[in-house]
């Protein structure tokens, strides 16, 4: 049996996101072969009704976005789409700049996002992660958030690479010039 077949069975049975290392452990597939097998699985799923959702070290199988309305009627539970503008802004920042610290989110929006971030955490749309160079908590999107947007991976977001470069570079320049000039009136974004 092929590696991609084993992974498909495991992800189907588990029915929730799994880390690549957990997959490797249970299937006995060497970690270095996992990405290739996932690629193969992703391509095979394309012709069917399922899709792979992936971010960093985590992966899950889900139903294709095109079948959304059918499954929703089956689930008999209304999806919660009520998300305010503040929530959307914070989500965009975390989607495009992840991993990103809260002080940076606040700095970009010019307003404190404490409770918005908390509510996004509660809804399972973002999660805490520790990231190098970021003081305090950093945040990143969950697979749940990708699934809300019907995205298989972050790179499928519109202008993902260019926005990331644009904003990260600008902030880097600003924080470098601030360091040169000493204290700024504004809170600095943490370094990347």
């Amino acid at each position, binding site marked *: 049996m092929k590696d991609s077949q084993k992974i498909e069975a495991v992800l189907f049975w588990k*029915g929730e996101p799994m880390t690549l290392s957990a997959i490797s452990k249970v299937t006995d597939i060497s970690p270095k072969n996992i990405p290739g097998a996932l690629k193969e699985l992703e391509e095979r799923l394309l012709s069917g009704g399922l899709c792979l959702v992936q971010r960093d070290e985590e992966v899950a199988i889900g139903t294709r976005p095109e079948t*959304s309305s059918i499954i929703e009627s089956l689930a008999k539970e209304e999806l919660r*789409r009520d998300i*305010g503008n503040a929530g959307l802004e914070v989500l965009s920042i975390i989607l495009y700049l992840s991993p990103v610290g809260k002080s940076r989110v606040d700095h970009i929006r*010019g*307003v*404190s996002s404490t409770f918005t971030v908390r509510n996004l955490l509660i809804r399972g749309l973002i999660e805490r992660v520790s990231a190098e160079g970021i003081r305090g908590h950093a945040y990143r999107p969950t697979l749940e958030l990708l699934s809300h947007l019907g995205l298989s991976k972050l790179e499928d977001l519109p202008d993902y690479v260019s*926005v990331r470069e644009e904003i990260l570079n600008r902030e880097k320049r600003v924080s470098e*010039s601030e360091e040169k000039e000493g204290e700024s009136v504004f809170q600095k974004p943490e370094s990347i």
Partner: protein
Amino acid sequence: MDFVVKQQGFEGPLEKLLELIEGRKLHINDLSLSAVTDEYLSWSKDLPERTIGDTAQFILIASTLLLIKSKSLLPSLTLSEEEESDVVELQARLIAYKRMKLLAATLKPRFGASFIFLEGKRERQPVFSPDASVTINGIFSSIKTVIAGIPVKEFLPETVVRKIISLEEMIVRLSERVTRSISISFKDFTKGVKERKEVIIGFLAVLELVKRGALAVTQDSEFSEIRIESRSPQTPSYS
């Protein structure tokens, strides 16, 4: 009724600034920022009570706007390197925020529209299997951790408090520089004023006075950039 849906009622300072600039169909630059300064400040007068952190953000941005406006009214005013970089950064922040706001708007219709269902309905037969941590003691110490983790209140970091104080100082210094540069004394304009907002509004009133006064007493070419044509003939008296 067991669920309450709250309405959005908060507008941040960057959001307001953007709205003012875009409302006038202007680009983000010194000119447009200077043009919307009065509106920004008067909007701020009616703001509801909010966290200290947000108030600090508002004032920090207000001070930069005042710098820009002062500079446009008094081209002779020279800004320090730090002040210049504040101006540059405010513009950069506005541009970055605008970008994010647009991206958020494109996400809005996508959110929940075509969902990928990750968790199925599938259920497995439960098998009773606690681990060693499931004891009365384990449960009790865990509930204490839970209680301690419920947020109580957000406190303003000390650094921001310090920055607010230095902003007040900056406004006072700036007012002195403005005063000196046109040789009319406004030394007492902040006397007895305690609220930061009052200082800012008061200072803007002073700037208005400066503008009119300067136009009235000098024909110095240095001030000719101030548009005389835009003055209404029935100028209100400030004296």
